[in-house]
């Protein structure tokens, strides 16, 4: 078969640069084994290119895919819960900010500000609600 020294060059023949190709051509002209090997490689390349080059899907491929997709179970619709909880989360942040203001303002030495017991309970309830909403929001994020 091909000479050991030239076998790799013959396998890479189409990619050889001019200098290497000229050397191979000169050798092939004088060596029947390498000539037969190169001819056989050309037959292989020619037939396999004819068989496999330009392979594409048929015209009915995309419609067939759409039909299969429609027959398959529908995708789960994106849930609105994260968006609702987002809104609740921002609301909770606003509520907490309000509560902080409610607590801090009395510390400011302005005489007419007073804090009643009912207001304290309301503030505590609002704080707990805000904390609950923020917590639920975090849980939704973790689930994602």
């Amino acid at each position, binding site marked *: 078969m091909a000479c050991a020294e030239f076998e790799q060059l013959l*396998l890479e023949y189409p990619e050889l640069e001019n200098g290497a190709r000229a050397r191979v051509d000169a050798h092939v002209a004088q060596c029947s084994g390498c000539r037969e090997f190169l001819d*056989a490689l050309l037959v292989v390349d020619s037939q*396999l*290119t004819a068989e496999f080059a330009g392979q594409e899907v048929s015209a009915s*491929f*995309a419609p067939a895919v759409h039909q299969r997709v429609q027959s398959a179970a529908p*995708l789960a619709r994106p849930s609105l819960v994260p968006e609702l909880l987002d809104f609740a989360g921002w609301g909770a942040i606003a509520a907490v900010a309000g509560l902080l203001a409610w607590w801090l303002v009395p510390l400011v030495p302005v005489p007419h500000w007073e804090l009643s017991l009912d207001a304290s309970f309301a503030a505590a309830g609002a704080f707990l609600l805000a904390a609950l909403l923020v917590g639920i929001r975090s849980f939704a994020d973790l689930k994602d």
Partner: protein
Amino acid sequence: MEQEIRACLDQKRYQEAFERLLPEFQNKVFRLAYAMLGDAALAEDMAQEIFVRIWKALPGYRGQSSLSTWIYAITRNACLTALKASGAKREVSMEAPGVARTVEASGTVSLPAAGAAIDVLRFLDQLPEKHQQVMRLYYMEEKSYEEVARLLEWPMGTVKTYLHRARKELAEAVARSKMKKGTR
């Protein structure tokens, strides 16, 4: 195009993302399936099934790899599963004693007449499975080592080694066939 598809996925516009990726990847998926399965009709059917799987998996795509890498991985896994289910083809090397003679004796070589064709495809079917896959894909992907390596997710050196070995075996089989034609 991949960036646009990912933008759709980020915004959970799955239908739109799918409508963009189908024409973009259908031929690549088909060619990879054809290379792995060895049959065009089977490959097209498998490619359709693969796109259904892609459709179902779109909400779970997190972008850790590129979209093409993700799609080709789904393709390879689906084809490997199909190959296992159908029973893997026995890997035969042309170097195994008697294989080349058996191939030639089975009528793959035409009678020695001027211009008679040698059926290289029959020889290709006798090669080990991985050699067949890389050879089919190489000629489908316009002889690009890079593209073959990307689709199969093999190192470039491995692709070249397999290709050279396969082409050498095929060329030697063709040359032996020609010699036999000449001595009949």
